[in-house]
């Protein structure tokens, strides 16, 4: 059975469909990329999963339970963590405090000890390579480092599903390779499923195991990365938009 199942999920904003009857699933442990032109509804889809938006129709199932109406903090405690394109860490707190908050609150029945939360935060930070920055204020880190803090914060609650929303936008080549490698290691080490919305095609081709293409809020096609990218409909959907293979 799939870990996450979206069944005919819809979201309308003022009558306009942003997500228009999307049915997708993610299997345990896979890295699924969701791609599509700007405005295809990719980010909205992620927001519907985590409860930042409530679907106008359809259902979201996670681990066999209906989470369609759950508020974000409940979704997180069930085991779905999200990292967004714009860093949402708390700038006036240290790196360690940020990650410890995720470790303490991001789990079901999160009445673990604070000590324990701090310890697991330290561990995750050394894993993403930020151990030496743990007492710095997040506001003093660069974008790339802030994304790593968010990744650390996301996995510190030991989620089963990790959603990444264009977390590789604006990175240089070295940072991009480091990020790709990190996501893969996170999946292997923490045994999480990754659903990943991305615009940087180079990253998609080298990391994704399966790709879903969205266009105008609908699923255009899905399959293996190299097959999907060769399909005529996908190429047409991207026409007028530069496919960032480079």
């Amino acid at each position, binding site marked *: 059975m799939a870990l996450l199942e979206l069944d005919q999920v819809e979201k309308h904003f003022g009558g306009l469909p942003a997500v228009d009857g999307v049915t997708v699933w993610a299997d345990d442990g896979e890295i699924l990329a969701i791609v599509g032109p700007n405005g295809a509804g990719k980010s909205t889809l992620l927001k519907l999963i*985590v409860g*930042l938006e409530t679907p106008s129709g359809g259902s979201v199932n996670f681990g066999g339970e209906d989470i369609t109406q759950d*508020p*974000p*903090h409940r979704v*997180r*405690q069930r085991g779905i*963590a*999200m990292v*967004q394109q714009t860093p*949402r*860490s*708390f*700038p*006036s*707190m240290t790196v360690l*405090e940020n990650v*410890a*908050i*995720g470790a*303490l*609150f*991001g*789990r079901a029945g*999160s009445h673990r000890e*604070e000590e324990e*939360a701090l310890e697991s935060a330290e561990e995750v930070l050394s894993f993403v390579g930020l151990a030496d920055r743990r007492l710095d204020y997040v506001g003093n880190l660069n974008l790339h480092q802030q994304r790593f803090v968010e990744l650390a*914060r996301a996995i510190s*609650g030991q989620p089963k599903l990790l959603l990444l929303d264009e977390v590789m936008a604006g990175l240089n080549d070295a940072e991009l390779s480091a990020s790709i490698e990190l996501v893969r290691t996170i999946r292997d080490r923490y045994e999480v499923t990754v659903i990943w919305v991305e615009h940087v095609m180079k990253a998609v081709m080298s990391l994704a195991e399966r790709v879903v293409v969205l266009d105008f809020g609908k699923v255009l096609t899905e399959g293996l990365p190299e097959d999907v990218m060769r399909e005529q409909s996908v190429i047409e959907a991207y026409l007028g938009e530069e496919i960032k293979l480079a």
Partner: protein
Amino acid sequence: MTAVILDGIVLGLQFGLLAVGLTLVYGLGGVLNLAYGQMAVAAAIVVALAMDAGLSAGVAVGVGLLAGGLFGLLLDATLLRPVYRLRGEAQILLSLLLTLGVAFIVDGLLTWQLPLEALTLNIGGGAVEIFGVPMRRGSLWASGITVAAFVALFFFFRSTMLGRAVRSIIQDEEGARLVGIDPNRMRTMILVSSGVLAALVAVTRSMSIPVTVTSGISFTIFALIVTVVGGLGSVAGAFFAGLLLGIINTISSFYIGTFLTLIILLSAAALTILIRPSGLLGVAE
């Protein structure tokens, strides 16, 4: 001059603590609570009634703090629910209208049912000399309690995970929800705390001057001014702004006159908005 400044510090500490309760509720829930001063006065009256009923001052104060917290809980569970669901201007406007209504109702009930003087706590014993200035024991007790409350607040927000969770909502509510923090739970906790803080300020205030049934509005106004100057959602900002404005207040009352003091304080707040809109230590949007 030393005496004036010391008086200013005593007053300023209380201003600061008063503002904490207002600024946290605003930072966390977008609610500008205009009934805040009335919460303080209502709690003071509970203390007075409890003492009339024969309870010792200490126990009566405890009951008063509880009553303040209960007031906060009640607001959170009823009138403020629809406010939390709104965003932006609509949220602030609705919170202003609803809490102003509560303020009127509480004021009306109190002045109708009770004598003017609500609470005076007489702290016995002679004056104590500080820097050669004789200070009333009541003022010293009040300052001691207020400083202790600030220390507790700083510890809570800096060193406990729950405190950090509250700060995270003030900084970025969506981000906080995404890491598993339930904003409604935190808001309830902060509303209750703000009621307790209001009660505590009313109690410490009554150690140096009587708190009357009509003190509510001036409590709210002072809290608002300190909040604006200190920055919304900042405990440290409220502390420093409270001290600053307390000292300005006593200096201006002493050398210029009480009638102009409020104007001077309001000008300080207006000036802050013009020069530094996020306040001394506020969270910039």
